[in-house]
C-alpha cells in the first residue's frame, strides 16, 4: 500500500503560537505522527513550541525542542538520518524552512525524501505571480492582476488596474502585509510594508473584488490523482476580509448545485496543476450577481481551514494526508468514523457549523481595532447546531466575551443609535454581528446592513429575525413567555438570557455521512432542535468528563490543550474512559479519535450539566479549562457534579483576594500589601499609606487585563479612572509593587498531602506579566540553583501549608516576587498553568500526570518532591507584534504574547540563545544593534555586545548618550530598520511618545526587538554561545 517502506520520518512543527499560526498545526502534526505510528514508521518531531502535544512522547518517537531554522533542521538530519521529511504539517513556517533546505540541495544530498506535494508544486502554488501564470496557462479564471517586485512596479500595476486594488504578498501567512487600497495615496503608504512581509520580495496587485462571496474548498488528492472535496466553507464576510477574520459557515449555504460543482471541478484542476499529494485549500471569489468566479489562491499544506474542515466534517484530513504522503491511495484508506466505508467520499453534513474568530485587539495599546485583509484574531470557536440561528448564537457564547448571543448586553453597544451601529459596521469593528443586531433593533433594514457589510442577505435576514423574536419575547407576559421558551431556545437563545429553563439539550452524532451509515466514533454535539437524543449512558464509575479551555485568547492557548490531553491521557492510563468537552477546532483535545466520546460544544455550566445528566457522567475535571473551569466550579458543584481535584471552596479561597489574604496572613505567609478600593480617593489614601510604586488592576480578570504599575499620584488617578470606565465600576485592586524583585513560579501537583513541584525563575523583573517573561529552570547542581536553595525551601513550605489549609488536590501554580530572599506570594492558581508543559519537559516528569493521579489516588512519597534537572531549560514568549497592526510593542503587567517557545542546553547562555531565536522573527543579528532606553544597563549592554559580537552599535537621538555608539535621528533609524542595517533593537520601558515609530517599524519590518534590559543583558552575553542540539530525553 505504501511506497517503498520508510523507517524514519522527520516532521517539522510550526513553532510558537502566533496570530495565523496557532494550535491547528499541533492538531495536524499530531495526526500525522499517529499516521506514521500506525504505519510502523519511527517519527521525529522538531518544534520549539514546548506547550504542544506533538512534542510529548505520546505521539512521537523522538522529540527535538529546537528552533525551526535550516541550521537546526540540518543538525537533526545529520544526527537522525531520516528517510524523509514531512514539511506540510507545520504551517508556512515549516514549509518555508523545508523548501530552503531543498533549494540548497541539502535534502537531496542527504537522501532525505520530500514527502507530500513536490517543491515545484508548492512553489507554483505559493509564488503569487507563478501561480497566476500557471492558472492563466490552464485557462483557470484568476482576477486581473500583476506580479510586482518593487514599489514602483506596484504603483504602475495599481494604476493600470484602477482602484480599488488588493495587494497580496507571496510566501507568507495570515495575509501579513496585504492590504486593500482605494487610492494611490493609500497604496503608496502600505506597499513597502507589504514587501517587508514577503519571504521572496514579491507581491501581487490585483483588482479588488469588493463584495464578492468568498469560498474555500478543501481538496484531498492522492498520487494517482484520485480527488475528493472534504468540505466547502462559506465566508459570511465578503472578499477583502481575511478568512481567519471571517465568520465561516459549513457547509456552504447559498450555492446552488451548478456553481458549487463548477467551483468544485475548478478546485480539482488547481490541485492537479500543482500535482498535489495530500491536501490543499482553494479559495474562490464568486460574484454575488452572476455565476462568474475567480480562483484566488491555494495553500498546498495543512492549514487553519483544513483543521476546521476536519472538525466540521469529522474527516481526519491530516491523518489521511499523511498517509497519502506515505504513498497510500485514497480509496485504500478507511473512513475512520464509520469504520466500514471508504475514505474516498465527500462528507455530507446534517447540521450547521459556524466558525467565529476571537479578537483581543483591546489588549494592545494603539492597535487598530478593525477587521481587514490581515489576520489579527487570536483564537476561534466552532459551534454546531441544527439551524443557523442556533449555531450562530452558540458561537457567540463560546467566544466568552460576555455576550449571550447576537443581542449584546454590552452597555456601549446597547446605547448606540442606528447610525452609530451602522458606522461600526462600516468601519469593520470586530464582532460585526453584535452591531448588525443592534442596527436591526434600531430599525435598520437588511438592504442597509448588506450595503454596509457586504454580507449576504440570507444570513442578515436570520439575524434580523432573531432581533424581532427577542423583542416579541421580552414584551410577552410571564405565562406566555413560558409557552415559547422552547422555541426561543431552539433559535439559540440561552436559558440565562431568557431567564427560563427549558427541556435538556439533546446529543447528536457527527458521522460524515448524515446518518446514512452507522458511526463507530462518538463525535457529538448538543442541540435543542431534535427529537431523538443519541446520548448513551456511560458507566458513571469509570467515566470522567474533561473540560477543555475553549477559545484561545491572550493568556489561554495551546498549553491548556496540552494540559487537557495530558490529564486525560493520565486518566485513561488509570482505567478511566474520557468524555471530552471543548469548542475550539484548533485543538488536539477535539480530535474525536482521542476520547471515548467527544462533545464539541460550549465549555459552560449549561452544557456540562446537560452532558452529565444525559451521559450519566458525574465526575468532572475542570482544572484543564483555564479560568472558565474555575468560574463555573461552584455552579457545577451546586448541580451535584463531583469536581475532581480542588473543590469549589478551595477555588474560591484562592480566587477571592480578600479570603485568600486572610488565609495567608493566618498562615504567616507574606504578600505585597494591598487593598480593594471603590474610588479614586480611596486609592490615593492607600497610596499615602503604602507608598509608590503601586500595582493597579481590576478585580476578577484574566491574564492581567488593564493591569499596570504606577509611580505617582497622577498616574494612579488616571489608571483607576481608566479601569472604572472600562469595567463599569467594579472594584479596583491596588497593591504595593516590590521593585527589582525576582519573580518565580512553582508548578505543582498534589494528592492533598504530598507535592511534586518545579521552581521556575524569570529573567525579567517582577512586574512583567509571567506570560511575557523568560522563564528558567535550573539544573539541580548548578550555581543558579544553589544560590536559590534557601528561597526555594521557603517556597516549598508555603506550598505545603497552602495545600493543607485549602485542601488543594491536583495541579496548582504559585507565583512569587522574591526580594532579599523573602518570597511574597502574588498569586495562587488552582488549575493547570501556562508553564506546566515547560516544567514537565524540563524535568522529564509530567506534572499533569501527577495532577490526575493526585485527584484519584495518593502519591507514594511523603512531603515535597522536587524532580532533579540535568540541563538548563529556558522558555521565551512568542509575540505577534507584526500581526497586531499599530500596536505599541512593550512589556508590562498586562500579557501581550500569543505563544511560547523553549529550549534546553547544558549551558545557560546556549539555552537562552536557542530559546530566544526560536521565537519569530528573532534571529542572530549580523549587522547592527540599536540600543536605547535601557537606563543604567545601557553601558554594560553595549560593552557585552562589543566584546562578544561584531555588531555596529547605534543609539537613538533623545536618549542617554552612549560610548561607542553612533546616534541616529528617528528618520535614520527607520531607514536602517527598513534596509536591515539594524537587525536587532535593545530597549526597555514604556515610552510611546518617544519611540512609537521605531518599535512599530521593528514590528512591521520583522526586526527582532528585546524589550527588557535584564533580558537584553542576558542575551547580549549569550549571542556567541555554542549550542547543542540534542533529543529532549538526553536532557533528562
Amino acid at each position, binding site marked *: 500500500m505504501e511506497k517503498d517502506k520508510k523507517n524514519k520520518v522527520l516532521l517539522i512543527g510550526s513553532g510558537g503560537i502566533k496570530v495565523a499560526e496557532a494550535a491547528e498545526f499541533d492538531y495536524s502534526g499530531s495526526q500525522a505522527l499517529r499516521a506514521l505510528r500506525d504505519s510502523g514508521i519511527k517519527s521525529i518531531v522538531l518544534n520549539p513550541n514546548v506547550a504542544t502535544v506533538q512534542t510529548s512522547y505520546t505521539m512521537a518517537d523522538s522529540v527535538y525542542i529546537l528552533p525551526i531554522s535550516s541550521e537546526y533542521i540540518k543538525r537533526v538530519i545529520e544526527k537522525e538520518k531520516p528517510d524523509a521529511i514531512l514539511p506540510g504539517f507545520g504551517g508556512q513556517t515549516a514549509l518555508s524552512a523545508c523548501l530552503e533546505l531543498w533549494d540548497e540541495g541539502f535534502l537531496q544530498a542527504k537522501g532525505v525524501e520530500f514527502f507530500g506535494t513536490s517543491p515545484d508544486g508548492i512553489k507554483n502554488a505559493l509564488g503569487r505571480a507563478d501561480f497566476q501564470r500557471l492558472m492563466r496557462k490552464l485557462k483557470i479564471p484568476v482576477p486581473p492582476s500583476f506580479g510586482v517586485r518593487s514599489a514602483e512596479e506596484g504603483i504602475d500595476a495599481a494604476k493600470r488596474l484602477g482602484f480599488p486594488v488588493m495587494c497580496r504578498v507571496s510566501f507568507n501567512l495570515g495575509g501579513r502585509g496585504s492590504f486593500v487600497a482605494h487610492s494611490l495615496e493609500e497604496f503608496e503608504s502600505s506597499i513597502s510594508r507589504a514587501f517587508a512581509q514577503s519571504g521572496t520580495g514579491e507581491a501581487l496587485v490585483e483588482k479588488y473584488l469588493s463584495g464578492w462571496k468568498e469560498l474555500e474548498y478543501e481538496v484531498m488528492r492522492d498520487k*494517482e*490523482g*484520485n480527488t*475528493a*472535496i472534504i468540505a466547502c466553507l462559506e465566508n459570511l464576510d465578503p472578499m477583502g476580509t481575511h478568512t481567519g477574520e471571517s465568520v465561516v459557515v459549513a*457547509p*456552504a*449555504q*447559498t*450555492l*446552488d*448545485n*451548478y456553481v*458549487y*460543482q463548477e467551483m*468544485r*471541478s475548478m478546485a480539482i484542476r488547481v490541485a492537479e496543476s500543482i500535482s498535489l499529494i495530500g491536501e490543499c485549500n482553494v479559495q474562490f471569489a464568486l460574484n*454575488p*450577481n*452572476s455565476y462568474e468566479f475567480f480562483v484566488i489562491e491555494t495553500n498546498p499544506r495543512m492549514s487553519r481551514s483544513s483543521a476546521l474542515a476536519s472538525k466540521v466534517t469529522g474527516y481526519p484530513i491530516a491523518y489521511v494526508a499523511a498517509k497519502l504522503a506515505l504513498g497510500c*491511495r*485514497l*480509496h485504500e484508506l478507511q473512513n475512520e468514523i464509520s469504520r*466500514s*466505508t*471508504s475514505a*474516498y*467520499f*465527500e*462528507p*455530507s*453534513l*446534517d*447540521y*450547521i457549523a459556524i466558525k467565529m474568530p476571537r479578537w483581543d485587539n483591546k489588549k494592545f495599546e494603539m492597535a487598530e481595532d478593525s477587521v481587514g485583509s490581515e489576520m489579527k484574531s487570536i483564537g476561534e470557536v466552532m459551534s454546531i447546531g*441544527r*439551524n*443557523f440561528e442556533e449555531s450562530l448564537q452558540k458561537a457567540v457564547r463560546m467566544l466568552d466575551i460576555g455576550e449571550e448571543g447576537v443581542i449584546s448586553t454590552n452597555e456601549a453597544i446597547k446605547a448606540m443609535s442606528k447610525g452609530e451601529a451602522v458606522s461600526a459596521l462600516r468601519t469593520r469593528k470586530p464582532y460585526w454581528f453584535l452591531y448588525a443586531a443592534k442596527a436591526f433593533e434600531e430599525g435598520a433594514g437588511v438592504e442597509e446592513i448588506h450595503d454596509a457589510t457586504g454580507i449576504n*442577505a*440570507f444570513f442578515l*435576514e436570520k439575524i434580523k*429575525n432573531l432581533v424581532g423574536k427577542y423583542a416579541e419575547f421580552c414584551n410577552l407576559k410571564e405565562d406566555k413567555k413560558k409557552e415559547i421558551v422552547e422555541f426561543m431556545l431552539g*433559535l439559540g437563545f440561552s436559558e440565562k438570557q431568557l431567564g427560563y429553563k427549558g427541556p435538556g439539550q439533546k446529543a*447528536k452524532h457527527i458521522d460524515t*455521512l*448524515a*446518518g*446514512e*451509515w*452507522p458511526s463507530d466514533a462518538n463525535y457529538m454535539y448538543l442541540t435543542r*432542535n*431534535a*427529537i*431523538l437524543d443519541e446520548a448513551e449512558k456511560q458507566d458513571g464509575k469509570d467515566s470522567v468528563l474533561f473540560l477543555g479551555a475553549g477559545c484561545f485568547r491572550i493568556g489561554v492557548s495551546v498549553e491548556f490543550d496540552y494540559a487537557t490531553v495530558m490529564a486525560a491521557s493520565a486518566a485513561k492510563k488509570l482505567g478511566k474512559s474520557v468524555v471530552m468537552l471543548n469548542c475550539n477546532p484548533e485543538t488536539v483535545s477535539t480530535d474525536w479519535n482521542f476520547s471515548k466520546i467527544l462533545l464539541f460544544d460550549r465549555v459552560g455550566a449549561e452544557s456540562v450539566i446537560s452532558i452529565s445528566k444525559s451521559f450519566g457522567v458525574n465526575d468532572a475535571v475542570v482544572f484543564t479549562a483555564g479560568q472558565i473551569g474555575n468560574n463555573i466550579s461552584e455552579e457545577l458543584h451546586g448541580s451535584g457534579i463531583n469536581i475532581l481535584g480542588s473543590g469549589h471552596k478551595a477555588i474560591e479561597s484562592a480566587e477571592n483576594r480578600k479570603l485568600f489574604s486572610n488565609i495567608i496572613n493566618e498562615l504567616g505567609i507574606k504578600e505585597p500589601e494591598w487593598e480593594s478600593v471603590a474610588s479614586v480617593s480611596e486609592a490615593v489614601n492607600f497610596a499615602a499609606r503604602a507608598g509608590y510604586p503601586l500595582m493597579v488592576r481590576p478585580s476578577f480578570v484574566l491574564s492581567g487585563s488593564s493591569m499596570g504599575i504606577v509611580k505617582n499620584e497622577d498616574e494612579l488617578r488616571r489608571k483607576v479612572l481608566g479601569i472604572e470606565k472600562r469595567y463599569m465600576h467594579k472594584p479596583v485592586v491596588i497593591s504595593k509593587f516590590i521593585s527589582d524583585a525576582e519573580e518565580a513560579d512553582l508548578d505543582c501537583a498534589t494528592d492533598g498531602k504530598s507535592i511534586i513541584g518545579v521552581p521556575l525563575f524569570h529573567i525579567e523583573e517582577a512586574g512583567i506579566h509571567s506570560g511575557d517573561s523568560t522563564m528558567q529552570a535550573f539544573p539541580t547542581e548548578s550555581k543558579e540553583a544553589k544560590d536559590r536553595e534557601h528561597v526555594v525551601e521557603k517556597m516549598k513550605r508555603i506550598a505545603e501549608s497552602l495545600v493543607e489549609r485549602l485542601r488543594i488536590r491536583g495541579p496548582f501554580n504559585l507565583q512569587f516576587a522574591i526580594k532579599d530572599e523573602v518570597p511574597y506570594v502574588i498569586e495562587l492558581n488552582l488549575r493547570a498553568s501556562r508553564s506546566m508543559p515547560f516544567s514537565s519537559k524540563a524535568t522529564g516528569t509530567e506534572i499533569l500526570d501527577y495532577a490526575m493521579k493526585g485527584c484519584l489516588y495518593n502519591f507514594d512519597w511523603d512531603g515535597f518532591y522536587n524532580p532533579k534537572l540535568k540541563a538548563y531549560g529556558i522558555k521565551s514568549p512568542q509575540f505577534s507584534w507584526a500581526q497586531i497592526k499599530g500596536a505599541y510593542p512593550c512589556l508590562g503587567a498586562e500579557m501581550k504574547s500569543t505563544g511560547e517557545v523553549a529550549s534546553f542546553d547544558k549551558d545557560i547562555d546556549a539555552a537562552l540563545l536557542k530559546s530566544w531565536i526560536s521565537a519569530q522573527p528573532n534571529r542572530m543579528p549580523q549587522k547592527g544593534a540599536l540600543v536605547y532606553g535601557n537606563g543604567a544597563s545601557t553601558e554594560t549592554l553595549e560593552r557585552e555586545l562589543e566584546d562578544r559580537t561584531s555588531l555596529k552599535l547605534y543609539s537613538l537621538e533623545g536618549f542617554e548618550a552612549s560610548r561607542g555608539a553612533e546616534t541616529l535621528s528617528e528618520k535614520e533609524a527607520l531607514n536602517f530598520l527598513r534596509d536591515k542595517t539594524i537587525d536587532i533593537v535593545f530597549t526597555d520601558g514604556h515610552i510611546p511618545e518617544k519611540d512609537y515609530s521605531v518599535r512599530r517599524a521593528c514590528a512591521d519590518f520583522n526586526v527582532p526587538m528585546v524589550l527588557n534590559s535584564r533580558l537584553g543583558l542576558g542575551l547580549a552575553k549569550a549571542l556567541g554561545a555554542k549550542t547543542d542540539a540534542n533529543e529532549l530525553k538526553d536532557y533528562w
Partner: protein
Amino acid sequence: MSERNDVAYLVLEDGSVYPGIRFGSHSNAEGEVVFTTSMNGYVESLSDPSYKGQILAITHPLVGNYGVPEKIRRNGILTNFESEMIQVSGLILGEITHGSEWNSEKSLERWLDDENVPGISGIDTRALALHIREKGTMAGIISSSKEFNKVRNYESINFVEMVSIKQPLIYENKGPKIAVIDYGLKEGILECIYSMGYSIVRLPHDATEEQVLSYNPKGIVLTNGPGNPLLLSRETENVAKLMEHNIPVLGICLGHQLVAMASGMEIRKMGFGHRAINKGVMELHTGKCMITTHNHGYAVFGDVPDGVEISHVSLDDRTIEGMTIKRHNVITAQFHPEARPGTKDGFRIFELFDYAVKGFIGGKR
C-alpha cells in the same frame, strides 16, 4: 422558520409520528419515504422523475436558501431542472428557508404552492434518516392527522408509464442520432449527450425494437426512471432485443438494471437505497475513482453471467455500479453520470459511450 403555524404530521407505516409545520399544498401526501444526504441541489432533486411516488426527506437541515430559478432551456433541453415539474409527492425538511439569490424566480415554498405539492418542516430529519436506515424504506403520509391511512403499495405501481413521454421528440444537432429511451429521464442526460454533438430522438418507455431502429440510431441510451424495475417486463424484453444489434448501449440507473435483467441477472430491493451525491465508485480496469451521484432503491445482485463484466463498484459496500457487455457494445452505470445534482466526475461514462459510438460508426463504414 415558517411563519405559518399549520401543524402537520409525518406518519410512517410502522406507526411513528413526527409532528411538524406544513408548507406548500394543504393536501395530503402519500408515498414511499426516502432520504437524500445531498446538501444542495434541491431544485434538481425535486424535479427528478426517479422520485415519482416518493416523499423525499433532505437530511441537511436548511433547504431553500437560494430560492428557485426560472427554467432555462437550451436546444429544447432544460439546463437547471430535471423535468418540467416537481416530481416528489411530498417534501420533508428540517427548516424551509426563504432565501433568494440573483437568479431566483421564486421561493422554494412558493414553488411547492404553485405546483400543489405538500411539505412538512420542523422535522428532525436525522432522526428520520436513522429510523429508515434501521427499519428500511417504508410508506408514509404527510397529513393533518396522526392516523396512518393505508396507501397503495409503492412496489406495485408502474410509475414509469406516468413519467415517460408519450410521443417521440427530436433534438436536432449536427452529429448522428442517439435514441434515448425515456423511462423518466433527467434532462441532464439529454444535455450530456447533446453536448457531445449528437442529435437525439427521445422515445417513450415502451418503444419497440422496430420503432427504435426506425431512427437508425448510432447509439441507444436507457435512462433512469422511478419505481420497481421488476414490473418492467415488456421494457426488459425490448432491451434484450435491442442489445442483439450491437449498437452501443448506455444504461443509466434503471437503464443499468434493465440491461442486468435482460442479461439474466437478479434485481433486489435494498434496505433503504442509496440517495446521495458523495459516493466513491471505482472503475475497475483503471483503478480510477470518482465521486458520484446515486438515487436508487433497487440494485443488481447475484451471479454475473458469462460475457458480462463488472466495470464499476461502490467503494463503500461493493455494490455493482457499472457493467460492460463487450460483445453487445453495452456499458452501464448504476450511478448518475449526468449528476445534477452532483459532481462532474462521472461524465467519463459519456465519454466512454462517445468512444463506443464513434467506433461503431467507423466499423459500420
